[in-house]
């Protein structure tokens, strides 16, 4: 054991050294590249964490999806200002009478960046890779697939190639959010040839049909994509996009002010005024479709006790957190769903800030003197939680006031997600940005019992309630939106009562950019394609 630790230590040192050497080299080549093509329009976009992978089906974080969305097209896409679907790689679609079959007509003359033609075979190849665990290219956890289509192979029983440009999906049951799901950035179409060629390394050699082509990825430094001149739709207006990783919020803002980057997300709320006051910068607000929450791992004692979870809900002062760490640009949450979504239940009372009630509940649960636990805080700024460490400390203080001694724990971002999916945490700060504007995408992914599989859990509270699951499954199969809304409203009542989370906030994430950047429409899903974005000289 000791020997192994020593080996790990040496590896870490070696990795650090390689990193240092590597980053020096990387900068040099980047400088040369920009010197060589002086007339290129380069858009430099910075965020706090690096992509975890570039195979869209195997990632769930915005850092990765922001990049893959430029490289990949989906069968359907969202309108620029809403979550209504519009044609993309599929031009027409039709549902069968029983609701179990979807027939999609595909766009003709589309090629992947490596020259492979896009057709019904390619669509089938992608879906078979995602849904069939025995498929030789099923490498990864495919978390989004299992989350949206309920496991492997899940709802999609078969994908049939009707002719070269027609594909038919056969479902086991009617699925209301099917089209909205297909438009999610994670279901981007990959080149079958590239997947065969790169195998396990496909996540760092992505090949799609999108308006930008992958150029290179220097881990923790930058990802570079360049314009695809053969794009089937409106062509990109900038020639290259550089996605830089700058972990520190204020350092990122300083770079924006200095002009070395063109735009950034993850603004410190305290700096919002600074951006407003700067005549060279503009502030954009992304429509709110997210939730920041504190998940309570119901597999750990004493969090398995509903009274303890309710007590923690009463103990947290959400408004104080919003005023201090969101610059007021957020609303306190009482449901997992954001209020902008249909199906939101405004009649749920939620838990107001009441430490006395929290103490009473703790005493009832058998913990009059509180207990010890851990509080996990994310290492990176998120749209729904710009300063997780600070918010963690504020919650720690709130909990201390009712006698709960929570120790703050943090890991690097990838490890944080992995350990959370495995359920190693007690209290876990996390959040979610909606992908498709359907309540299913929040409630089913985050709270259904089928999403508590260790290692790929989206339900990090490990909340397993049969009544809630039944309601969510029924809502998935119902096609009448009004009826679905009713089912979701009922589910929210139960979730609030069982309190697997402390729902904290719904934020309006700010984006800071140079004034010279135009044509950028922040999308509620948290990421958008930069095809129409332009940069004035």
């Amino acid at each position, binding site marked *: 054991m000791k020997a192994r*630790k020593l080996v*790990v*230590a*040496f590896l*870490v*040192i070696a990795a*650090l050294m390689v990193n240092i050497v590597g980053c020096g080299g990387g900068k040099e080549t980047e400088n040369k590249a920009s010197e060589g093509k002086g007339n290129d329009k380069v858009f430099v976009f910075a965020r706090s964490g690096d992509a975890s992978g570039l195979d869209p089906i195997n990632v769930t974080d915005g850092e990765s999806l922001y990049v893959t969305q430029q490289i990949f097209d989906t069968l359907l896409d969202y309108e620029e200002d809403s979550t209504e679907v519009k044609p993309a790689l599929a031009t027409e679609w039709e549902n069968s009478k029983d609701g179990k079959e979807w027939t999609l007509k595909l766009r003709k003359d589309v090629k992947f960046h490596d020259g492979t033609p896009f057709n019904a075979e390619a669509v089938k190849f992608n879906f078979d890779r995602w849904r069939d665990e025995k498929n030789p290219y099923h490498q990864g956890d495919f978390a989004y697939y299992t989350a949206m289509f309920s496991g492997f192979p899940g709802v999609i029983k078969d994908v049939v190639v009707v002719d070269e440009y027609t594909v038919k999906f056969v479902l086991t049951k009617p699925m209301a959010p099917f089209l909205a799901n297909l438009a999610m950035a994670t279901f981007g179409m990959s080149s079958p040839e590239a997947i065969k060629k790169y195998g396990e390394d496909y996540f760092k050699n992505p090949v799609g049909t999108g308006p930008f082509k992958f150029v290179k990825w220097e881990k923790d430094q930058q990802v570079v994509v360049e314009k695809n001149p053969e794009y089937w739709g409106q062509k990109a207006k900038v020639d290259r996009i550089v996605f830089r990783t700058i972990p*520190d*919020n*204020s350092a990122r803002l300083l770079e924006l002010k200095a002009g070395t980057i063109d735009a950034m997300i993850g603004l*410190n709320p*305290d*700096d919002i005024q*600074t951006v407003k006051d700067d005549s060279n910068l503009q502030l954009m607000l992304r429509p709110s479709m997210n939730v920041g929450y504190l998940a309570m791992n119901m597999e750990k004692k004493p969090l398995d006790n509903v009274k303890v979870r309710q007590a923690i809900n009463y103990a947290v*002062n959400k408004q*104080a*957190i919003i*005023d*201090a760490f969101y610059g007021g640009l957020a609303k306190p949450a009482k449901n997992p769903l954001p209020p902008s979504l249909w199906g939101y239940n405004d009649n749920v009372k939620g838990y107001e800030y009441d430490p006395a009630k929290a103490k009473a509940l703790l005493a009832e649960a058998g913990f009059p003197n509180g207990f010890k636990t851990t509080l996990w805080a994310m*290492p990176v700024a998120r749209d729904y939680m710009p*300063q997780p*460490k*600070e918010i*963690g*400390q*504020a919650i*720690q*203080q709130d909990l*201390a006031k009712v006698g709960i001694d929570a*120790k*703050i*724990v*943090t890991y690097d971002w990838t490890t944080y997600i992995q350990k959370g999916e495995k359920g190693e945490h007690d209290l876990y700060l996390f959040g979610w940005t909606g992908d498709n504007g359907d309540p299913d995408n929040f409630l089913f992914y985050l709270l259904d019992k089928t999403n508590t599989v260790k290692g790929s859990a989206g339900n990090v509270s490990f909340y397993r309630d049969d009544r809630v699951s039944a309601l969510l499954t029924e809502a998935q199969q119902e096609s009448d939106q009004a009826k679905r809304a009713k089912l979701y409203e009922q589910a929210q009542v139960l979730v609030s009562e069982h309190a697997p989370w402390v729902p904290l906030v719904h934020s309006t994430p700010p984006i800071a950019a140079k004034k010279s950047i135009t044509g950028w429409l922040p999308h509620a899903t948290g990421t958008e394609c930069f095809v129409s974005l332009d940069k004035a000289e």
Partner: protein
Amino acid sequence: MSETVLNLNDTQQPRNETRESKGLWADAFNRIVRSKSSLIGLIIVAIFLLVALVAPVIAPYDPINDSDLVKRLEEPSGQHIMGRDSQGRDIFSRLIYGSRISVQIGVISVSFALILGVSLGAAAGYYGRWLDGIIMRAMDILLAFPSVLLAIAITAVLGPELRNAMIAIGVVYTPHFARIVRSTVLSVKAAEYIEAARSIGCSDLRIIMRHVLPNCIAPIIVQTTLSVGTAILDAAALSFLGLGAQPPTPEWGAMLSDGRSYIQKAPHVMIFPGMAIMFVVLGFNLLGDGLRDALDPRLKQ
């Protein structure tokens, strides 16, 4: 050349320990007080230790629990002479309590290095041969790494906690002590009084403890003083990187790291912890340098 000879003469002569060391310490103290820079170092270190000792008495607020989010980032005022931090806590009180943590880090990590380094160095020097080879090569390997890098690697493996940061710093500083002790042991090992001790039947342990190690007390003290300063600095660096003390511990490096986000809006949040680290490290370095000069046997007359 002449210097070496002087040195050798000095260490090879058996000493009457009680009388001479009394003189040595009194001499050393006089020299420290006479030199302006080392006197400043001594004063800084004394204030620092005193503050750490009486922290609960002089701190006006609780360093962790007196938080007020509404008044966060408040500028220095009469009530909060260093202002409030991002959680609305009194920075002055946090710095005062932070001095306790810094003392703890300095003392524990350096004692760890001291005990480990002295035993390894004494064993290597006294027994020689293959044991010397193994121990000193291992020490060379540790020395080959930049100290902070090695400490980062160790804490990365053990997990980010203050205790692990102290272990890491202890390990990193061990080779310095081992080297000093080994070289002194080597120079006195063959001396006549050691042989005499051996011939009357003293055990190895007694010889090392009573007759060999007292010879290296002066350089060890200098090294210890200097190490405490750099250990505090290294621990602050680890905490700054998130590998040492975790929030809400009022550790100076962690406070500096927290304050970094507000460098434009509320610079006082990071200026004060930064200055605290600077002064304490400066104090230990000045004192260490002064001690080195004061304990130098060449300056005896």
